[in-house]
């Protein structure tokens, strides 16, 4: 979005056109090939990481991205240590931080908080996760990984497995990949954790082919990409349901036996036990590359939003 001051922000993956995603991917590929030529690009610029709830890996990815561009980082990593603990509004925080920094990465437990910041800040705001709502830089990491592993975004069979009900990364990935030709989805989850109606209806409206199944092994041979997600304890009201379901969709080496040789296994991390460690050395495992790709895409995004 662009706010009343003409400042651009990234709040949702759908803020970006297909063309803008292509540009970010190209920039990221160029950074990977020529890291040195980017080492001073953000010299003298400051990134503020405003994390109203802790998420160490996302914060570190943003910080590493800014440092590799030659910039600096200020910020806080939990609400307790910030002015929010004293009751300051998100709007006021955004206005204040605009005086100190050049760009904001904000994580907040409440949905829409980064939008409030983006409406009020005079510097760009990147949504680094707002509750169960959006987490666009994770999706950018997913997209770069798909591009680097497959060489394309079109004509792919994408399996998504695990918690498809609350898994926001899954919903964003479906949104983003639905825009490319010849993409189909296999939605693999327990009955209790199927995708919400609005996700299913959006696919139907756009005529995106998809199937829903509870059978991970059965779906395996058709997949070009398998996106695994974590079944999160905090999503369940009932401990019994969590314990019963959490092990249902664990990816083990034997389940990969009938998978394509060029399958790419992705996961937004952190994992608990949904992917066996034994798979980490399989060339099809891409989830640690995905972490690295996340940093490159954050670098590309910072450059784009700062216009440098």
């Amino acid at each position, binding site marked *: 979005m662009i706010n009343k001051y003409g400042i651009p922000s990234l709040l949702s993956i759908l803020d970006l056109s297909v063309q803008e995603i292509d540009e970010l991917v190209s920039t990221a590929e160029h950074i990977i090939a020529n890291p040195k030529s980017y080492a001073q690009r953000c010299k003298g610029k400051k990134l503020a990481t405003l994390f109203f709830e802790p998420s160490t890996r996302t914060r570190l990815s943003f910080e590493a991205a800014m440092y590799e561009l030659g910039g600096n980082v200020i910020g806080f990593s939990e609400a307790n240590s910030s002015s929010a603990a004293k009751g300051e*509004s998100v709007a006021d925080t955004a206005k204040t931080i605009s005086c100190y920094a050049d760009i904001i990465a904000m994580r*907040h437990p*409440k949905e*829409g908080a980064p939008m*409030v910041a983006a409406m009020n800040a005079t510097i760009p705001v990147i949504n680094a996760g*707002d509750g169960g*709502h959006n987490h666009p830089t994770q999706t950018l990491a997913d997209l770069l990984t798909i591009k680097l592993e497959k060489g394309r975004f079109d004509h792919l069979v994408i399996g998504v497995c695990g918690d498809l009900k609350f898994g926001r990364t899954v919903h964003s990935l479906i949104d983003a990949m639905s825009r490319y030709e010849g993409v189909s989805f296999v939605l693999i989850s327990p009955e209790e954790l199927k995708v919400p109606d609005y996700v299913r209806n959006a696919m139907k409206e756009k005529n995106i082919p998809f199937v829903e199944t509870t059978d991970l092994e059965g779906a395996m041979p058709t997949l070009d990409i398998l996106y695994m997600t974590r079944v999160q304890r905090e999503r369940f009201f009932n401990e019994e349901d969590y314990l019963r379901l959490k092990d249902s969709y664990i990816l083990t080496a034997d389940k990969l036996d009938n998978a394509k040789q060029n399958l790419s296994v992705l996961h937004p991390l952190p994992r608990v036990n949904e992917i066996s460690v034994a798979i980490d050395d399989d060339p099809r495992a891409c989830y640690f590359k995905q972490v690295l790709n996340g940093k490159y895409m954050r670098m590309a995004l910072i450059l784009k939003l700062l216009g440098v």
Partner: protein
Amino acid sequence: MNIDSIKNGIVIDHITAGKGMEIHRLLGLGNLDCMVALITSANSEKMGRKDIIKIDAPIELDTDVLGYVDPGVTVSIIRDGETVEKKKMTLPDELEGVVRCRNPRCITSTEQELTHIFKLVNPAKREYRCIYCETKV
């Protein structure tokens, strides 16, 4: 007040029968100093029954509220006993401070001073979503 002939004011006509009270409440007409007439179940050639509201003062109306609650209504502005303007309402693109977001995880649930804003995302289904969390009305 002669409810048939307002000199300077507003007539909200063709209100779906039964919605007059809701519109009266949402527009805050009970707080006005002037006289307000709410006529329910009036005869209508087109609608069978309808509600009508007549306001005996030239106030500013929040037409977004009207368009949202009952898009078929017409608003007539009366000056010196003459109708100077007659407007048919349409679904507004945005609702500001009309309805509240009920999502407990929405930022509007903790920040009291934030205006609740909804955007029309699907006119055919009259579907509005919170601009912050995208929850439906």
